[in-house]
């Protein structure tokens, strides 16, 4: 006997996408559909649920092949607009990291540093069609005699540019407060003293891994919206931790799963790949990502009905605990409470501050819906799914 009442295959859903009969809804729309029809009814009706997120993702960067020139060069040091890229790869390959600051940046010498330009900004500028100053150095070999290269390049001049983000889409994250007496500047934003504000970064009920908490449909080969173009999940991300403690519904209570994603930058759009400057912390890149979840059965329908009230977020002190590696939390709030703008913390009303753009995530979920419905964006069936622990 079949385990589920509804059983759909990737092929069946893709056939529906090709014929235009597919039913696609966003993860937010799915909540009410499952409430109305129940999981079985919803699974019969809906084929794909779109999820999305748009937030600073520090673990991002680009593999760039600048193309050969004459005389040939084996680049060993490379800079784009004075931002160094790692060139310890083959002749004209390099990796430009999103958090790499510009070389003449004063960093945190004048505290808190502004970090106005870094690797993420270079990637955005290339996408925006701007000219970027490329400088490369080498020691010279018989096959690659040139020792220096300097020119202005545009994205179109680069032979290849591939976004390769080793850790994106964190399944749950901390809510950050600062229990010290001084303002601090963190990757979770500015935190005022004595828990003056509580910062968080997730798109909650729209976030990809909350909608497939046990990674039953996400893995190597899942086709996604990445930066406005088409990308893929290629591996589990760094720090992927599926064994985090979970709620009854399977939602992890602490940072858990992550995905490794890749995509062709030449297909992307500048509005979905935006360089950011985090005061006192550094540079990063806000990346728009959308993941379609196939509703293979009623279990997936139930998972994708997850709502903000179901998602607990742990409160962590970034003033003293986090920098000292003290693993402690000050209780949980739900994402619904965080999104409301105010939480009760230590008997005090504390304003909440998001870093993840929910309005932009909604836009992405809608775009992906349109792609699937109108532009025949079919689902990539994973070769294997992410490890579950």
């Amino acid at each position, binding site marked *: 006997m079949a385990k589920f009442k509804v059983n759909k295959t990737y092929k069946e859903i893709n056939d529906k996408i090709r014929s235009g009969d597919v039913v696609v809804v966003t993860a937010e729309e799915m909540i009410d559909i499952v409430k109305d029809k129940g999981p079985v009814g919803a699974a019969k009706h809906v084929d794909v649920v779109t999820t999305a997120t748009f937030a600073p993702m520090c673990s991002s960067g680009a593999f760039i092949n600048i193309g050969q020139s004459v005389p040939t060069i084996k680049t060993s040091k490379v800079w784009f607009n004075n931002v160094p890229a790692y060139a310890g790869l083959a002749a004209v390959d390099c990796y430009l990291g999103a958090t790499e600051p510009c070389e003449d940046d004063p960093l945190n010498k004048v505290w808190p540093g*502004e970090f106005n330009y870094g690797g993420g900004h270079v990637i955005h500028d290339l996408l925006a069609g701007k000219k970027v100053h490329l400088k490369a150095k080498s020691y010279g070999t018989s096959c690659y005699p040139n020792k220096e290269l300097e020119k202005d390049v545009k994205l179109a001049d680069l032979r290849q540019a591939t976004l390769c983000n080793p850790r994106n889409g964190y399944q749950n994250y901390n809510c950050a407060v600062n229990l010290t007496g001084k303002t601090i500047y963190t990757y979770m*934003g*500015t935190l*005022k003293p004595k828990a003056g504000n509580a910062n968080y970064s997730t798109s909650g009920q729209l976030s990809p891994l909350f909608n497939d908490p046990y990674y039953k449909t996400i893995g190597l080969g899942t086709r996604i919206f990445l930066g406005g173009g088409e990308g893929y999940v290629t591996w589990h991300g760094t720090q992927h931790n599926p064994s985090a403690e979970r709620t009854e519904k399977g939602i992890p209570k602490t940072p858990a799963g992550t995905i490794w994603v890749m995509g062709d930058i030449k297909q992307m759009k500048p509005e979905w790949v935006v360089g950011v*400057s985090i005061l006192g912390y550094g540079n990063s890149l*806000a990346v728009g990502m959308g993941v379609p979840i196939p509703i293979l059965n009623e279990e997936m329908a139930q998972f994708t009905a997850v709502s903000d009230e179901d998602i607990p977020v742990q409160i962590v002190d970034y003033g003293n605990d986090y920098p000292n590696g003290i693993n402690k939390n000050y209780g949980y709030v739900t994402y619904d409470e965080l999104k409301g703008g105010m939480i009760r913390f230590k008997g005090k009303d504390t304003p909440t501050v*998001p870093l993840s753009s929910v*309005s932009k995530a909604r836009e992405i979920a809608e775009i992906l819906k349109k792609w699937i419905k109108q532009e025949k964006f079919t689902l990539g069936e994973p070769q294997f799914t992410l490890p579950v622990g």
Partner: protein
Amino acid sequence: MYSKLLILHFSGKEVEKPVVSNLTRYYDLSFNIHKATILPRREGIMVLELSGSKKNFKSGVQYLKDQGVIVKNASQEVTRDEKKCIHCGACTAVCPTHALAIKRPEMFVIFDKKKCSVCELCIRTCLTRAMKIQPISETLFE
């Protein structure tokens, strides 16, 4: 002696009140009105230079605020480059006047320039550098 160019926004209610002359009477401040205008719907805008001791200046400005007048530094204003804003919300951590605030449930980050006190805190906090400080535009009076 402390002196600053200020922009005062009066809503319909305070426009008639002699709040400005009270600055001299109660706070020993002198003022020099550069421009004054009443907009349709009886909103008033005035640019004036206010001078006196720093302590009196502060009390005077507080008095204006207590009367419901919006007081801004006249030489500069803060604007947002709408194309650059990604509506993340990071700036709302520091904005003291709620000029930058989140509109729910849409989760758009709105910028209400009228509430902005030009404290400049958002400039470096904004993730995308969408907030800018610039000399005030004369267009206010056109």
